[in-house]
């Protein structure tokens, strides 16, 4: 990579990759994996998502990580991003809540309002 044009190419490709690709990824789960999140159990949350998704053979769900949003009092924090819908942020997550979110939100398409701490970007 030697020029700004090269950088632009990488950027365009990365932006495309970050988008949810219709058939491929229907929903993206983003777990906050900063120290605060991990201290409050984000690893367990991430693990449970992966297990539940594998157990249900959901192939159109992507699980990824991010840093801290700043919502320490609501850690572990998880974003659910779906194409064309408002982003939903769940807070104070634990493995049991993850199971419910997988069933309700990811499988049945209903937001689990009890756990929602913010919506939108």
């Amino acid at each position, binding site marked *: *990579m*030697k*020029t*700004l044009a090269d*950088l632009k190419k*990488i*950027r365009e*490709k*990365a*932006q495309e*990759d*970050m988008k949810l690709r219709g058939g491929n990824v229907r929903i993206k789960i*983003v777990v*906050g994996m*900063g*120290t*605060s999140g*991990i201290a409050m159990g984000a690893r367990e949350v991430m693990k449970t998502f992966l297990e539940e998704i594998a157990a249900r053979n959901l192939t159109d769900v992507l699980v*990824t*990580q*991010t*840093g*801290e*949003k*700043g*919502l*320490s*009092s*609501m850690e572990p*924090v998880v974003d659910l991003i779906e194409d064309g819908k*408002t982003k939903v942020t769940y807070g104070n997550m634990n493995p049991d809540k993850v199971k419910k979110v997988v069933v309700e939100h990811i499988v*049945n398409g*209903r*937001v689990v*309002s*009890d756990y*929602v701490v*913010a*919506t*939108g*970007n």
Partner: protein
Amino acid sequence: MSLKRIDLLICCGSGCVSAGALKIKERFHEVLKEHNLTTEVNIIETGCMGPCDYGPVMVIYPEGIFYKKVSVDDVAEIVSEHFVKGRPVNRLMLQEEEKTFQAQKDVPFYQKQVKVALENCGYINPESLDEYIATGGYEALGTILTEMKPQDVINVIKESGLRGRGGGGFPTHIKWQMVHDNKADQKYIICNGDEGDPGAFMDRSLLEGDPHRILEGMMIAAYAMGASNGFFYIRAEYPLAIKRIKMAIEQAKELGLMGNNVFGSGFNFDAEVRTGAGAFVCGEEMALIHSIEGMRGNPTPKPPYPAVQGLWGKPTVVNNVETFGNIATIIRKGAAWFASMGTEKSKGTKVFALTGDVRNTGLVEVPMGITLRELIFDVGGGMIGDHKFKAVQLGGPSGGCLTVDHLDTSVDYESLKERGAMMGSGGVIVMNDEKCMVNVAKFFMEFCVEESCGKCSPCRIGLKQMLEILERITDGKGREGDIEELQRLGESINKLSLCGLGQTAPNPVLSTIRYFREEYESHIRDHSCANKVCLDLMHFNIDKERCIGCSLCARKCPTTCISGSREEKYTIHQIDCVKCGNCFDVCPVKAIDKIPGMHPEIAANRAQIAKAAQHYDD
């Protein structure tokens, strides 16, 4: 489980409940029944949503529509218009400057935040260079390397008005200019990630959440001043931050964003990570430099400043993590954009870490010049529970306490300093009315005594002296003149200490004396801690009227100082009581009270011992 088409989230935080949220919830149940909608609408009580000023508030999904100040009378309209006809009730939405906000994210609670440094934190995958590039990452670096001269870069930062975010607020461009003008063969740039201030964690979050942004900021600075080597000095308490920044360096090297001839511009740069090993003083720039050199992290007198003689004697710039976090965005969006935020002398935004007894603990980024009230009550969501706000400690152990009278103070470098506090690294420790300010000051002093490196005597000995006086006061042995002595010591230490740690360490004590002098006085004169925190200045008492004589307290007392019977009820023998609080915790009928003030028996006992000692000395 039936499928419901609407989720109605009613805030049942204490603010909204006190404004009638529960009655509204009942009314919804009634009206929904009338409309036969109970199977379609899911009513959910939530915890506090934050914007308590607008209570009772509610959010309706799937649209995410936010209603404020809802009354029982509005319920019928919401159901018939919104739920039945699908027409949201505009008059209940937040009105501001003719604009109707719909979604919850648009409420001031979220809206008052402006994210510059934290832009990507919590949004991108910090371990993916591609995601950083997708947000416009490394564009600023590419632009300056191919289109700008080092001096142009410094000029942009100068025009932006950016000041160091680590504590002192020194204008960033001056440091860069000094090193730029120095014609040395080797120059260094250091990122100060030794975030030691208790209550501050923005640097950790940035390094963990958006490491490439910090790296890009450092490289821009390196180009501007002509450095080809950089060091990230990160405290060993932050293993994840260390891992992520190391990963970022590897990724940048692999893609050719670091190394030789970056962007074909002839600019070469390499960076390494160094860690601390547990020493608060290493956040001081000279101490930090010595630590990187593999020595004890002692500060040394300035001048010479690091910009003249820094790491291995070469000109060096030490910038804080958050400072670097602003650089790339300033280059991309322009100095004027950045300078349009904030106050006359404090430009841009600042990240604050809200901690303590505030509801929304965490990191927030707001424009400089916001008031403390907005920061704590709007963004921070106010106090936890029904407690009142008492004080806020700004700037960690170097800062000062401000009170309810200062809530309308603008948060910027100058205004805070004028009132005896400081911006520091942005730690905001909020305290409720249960806190004893003498005890808090003592706690901060313990921290500073512990962390003093011991090199200069005002700090090493003076702080210890101050701590002893504070301990004396909280133990009920304070004397007349102790307050003045604390002030005198504090001022001398401030003037005579070698580095910033010592110079600012007396601040918590001085500022609490300034604003809570009466608490010190009652500790000294009345031997009383009004908040029942200082154990020697409070006592436990069993109220015989309420006591049922169950003997549980006596059985749980570790010093067997409680005696009595079912008939006579129970009594605490004050002399032997160690104030462990077991009795208070176990009493089934809450018949035990905490009472401010030293018990007369203890006072008499102490006087007797003192007299005997006097006699012995004679």
